């Protein structure tokens, strides 16, 4: 075990998988000599060489399309998109190609690749560097979408993603890259994709979230506990597929549900979770389902982003509302 940050956990997962499996390689912009703009691949080019850590020309569609070709012919690429907002450039290769090859060839071909990309707000980036786009990909059959919130999960989920036989989008909340350290096993381990985690147990209301909002919610739930309110917090960890069982079990107990995410509200993952509970757990509910999310505008400039993101005040108001039923 060692105490490491999320960025170190991610680097460790890639390093150890590349040591174990010569089919695994990395491609992306600035991932080689520069070690990635967040240093996720720092030192990897020295260890594995330019053939396995490829500084590509600046072309997102080419990165993903090439990775699709590599995975069709026996390699297991980890493609990096420098910021998630840039993935729109590669949308055809992600949604029409990577996602559909298994279906198109009825299983003759498949695409075991990972797309890593930083996302999320609160760090005063320029435009298009902070957008949370998970809903786009969870609306695309054939893709899995993983969104860890801590170093331990990040390592185990990334290893599982690299070993997965289908394309996995692995989104990393950049706000949490270096914000905390956590004990992480030195050896390889997998955390199953599609399995949520109950990070705080409680019986008065359920909060479902993932990625960058989780640490803030943990703190808040702990505060409420001191004040005598017991909230259950579920970290989805994977947003496609969604772990319905864990959510439904929790709602059956708490009878109240709130979903918190940074992405815009309309047609977000929160809507899917709410629909799921409406279909399969509506008789457990004693209160309306609430969503606290980014507002339905493009991600805004730095001077107003803190008022745009889900913040403590908004979440507390919603918890009061839930508990009043």
């Amino acid at each position, binding site marked *: 075990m060692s105490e490491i940050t999320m960025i170190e956990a991610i680097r460790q997962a890639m390093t150890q998988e590349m040591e174990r499996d010569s089919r695994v390689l990395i491609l992306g*912009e*600035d991932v*080689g*000599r*520069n*070690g990635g*703009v967040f240093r996720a691949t720092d030192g990897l080019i020295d260890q594995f060489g330019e053939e396995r850590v490829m*500084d590509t*020309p*600046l*072309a*997102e*569609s*080419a990165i993903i399309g090439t990775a699709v070709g590599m995975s069709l012919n026996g390699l297991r690429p980890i493609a990096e998109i420098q910021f998630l*907002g*840039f993935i*729109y*450039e590669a949308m055809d290769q992600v949604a029409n190609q990577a996602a559909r090859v298994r279906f198109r060839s009825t299983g003759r071909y498949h695409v075991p690749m990972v797309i890593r990309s930083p996302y999320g707000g609160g760090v*005063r*980036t*320029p*435009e*298009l*560097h902070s957008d949370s786009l998970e809903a786009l990909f969870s609306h695309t059959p054939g893709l899995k979408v993983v969104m860890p919130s801590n170093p331990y999960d990040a390592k185990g989920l990334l290893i599982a993603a690299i070993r997965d036989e289908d394309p996995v989008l692995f989104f990393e909340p950049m706000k949490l890259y270096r914000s905390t350290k956590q004990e992480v096993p030195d050896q390889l381990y997998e955390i199953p994709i599609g399995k949520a985690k109950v990070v705080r147990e409680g019986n008065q209301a359920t909060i479902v979230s993932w990625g960058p909002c989780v640490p803030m919610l943990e703190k808040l739930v702990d505060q409420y506990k001191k004040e005598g309110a017991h909230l259950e917090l579920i970290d989805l960890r994977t947003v496609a597929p969604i772990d319905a069982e864990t959510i439904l079990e929790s709602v059956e107990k708490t009878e109240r549900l709130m979903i918190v995410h940074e992405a815009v*509200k*309309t047609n977000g993952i929160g809507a899917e979770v709410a629909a799921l509970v409406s279909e399969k757990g509506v008789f457990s509910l004693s209160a309306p389902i609430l969503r606290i999310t980014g*507002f*339905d*505008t*493009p991600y*805004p*400039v*730095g*001077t*107003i982003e*803190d*008022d*745009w993101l889900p*913040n*403590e*005040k*908004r979440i507390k*108001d919603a918890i009061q509302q839930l508990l009043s039923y």
Partner: protein
Amino acid sequence: MFREEDLTFERVERLNEDGVLLHDKKVVSDEQVLEMYQWMLKARLLDEKLLRMQRQGRIGTYAPYSGQEAAQIGSVFALEKSDWICPSYREHAGNMVHGMPLEQIILYAKGHLHGGRVPEDVNILPVQIIIAAQTLHAVGTAYAQKYRGEKHVSVSYFGDGATSQGDFHEALNFASVYQVPAIFFCQNNQYAISVPVEKQMASKSIAQKAVAYGMPGVQVDGNDVLAVYEVMKEAVERARNGEGPTLIEAVTYRLGPHTTSDDPTKYRSKENVEPWREVKDPLRRVRLYLENSNLWDVEKEKAFVQTFQDELDHMIDEIESKEKEFPKVEEAFEYVYQEKNAQLEEQQAEARRIREEGDWHE
């Protein structure tokens, strides 16, 4: 067979590193050279100021342009005010000359909601973050001009990295097919963040890519403001006369980091940067020329720098004294559609309420 070896490579140069004109024919007057130099100097001072402000936490992530002043300013000098500019995020020097107010550049750097708003009478598109996306916008704006029978041209500014993107190649092809009055102005500053241009492409130049699309391609010393002006002037004239698009590659150098978030010592040596900072600096050779022509001296430079810095500091003080009055989150809802839908109305009210009641920050 078409082979790279068959192409002729020429880099247009007019003013050498010692500030000496390379041939007699000069298409600009000395007064214009002086004016260009003064803009370049202002641009350099603004860039240095913004870089310092970022280090002090007074603005967000910033992409400096020092080293590229001749490429930007020389080319914009060849434009009319009615011509369009489709810029990337590293073009404040050229934008300033084309009419972008200084205040606006500072507001953008400060993350002000209106930082992307360009004044009504200035034909510059908002800062483009996505690499090469604006090359297509130059095609479209140029098409509109041609369609209406106007004589304006559209210029897209981008870097060497952008030439790897599909959008760039699609833009060149469209521009050529439709023979629109567009100019593709590439500042080859030699690095796309950390990746050097020789790893970005296997071709000998960017200019030669024009050949594949059936348009003229020109390579110019991008640190030579007179050479840049001259090749741009020719491209603009061709475009205005209905002779179609041009690709210009201005070979220059990004003296600073890609943005304030990166550390260039990771990917290039001090020895690599030094000559560009000294003898190859785009301001130096113009200053030498002007000094040799008795149009400029140390005293004039000192006074000019002082005046501009005072103006800039005063403007920044004014802006910073009003930071509390910057637009609030609820105003953001006004710019999503022409008319707000019901959900946006509801969310806008919620955003305002939370902000007004909130004691969670400030």
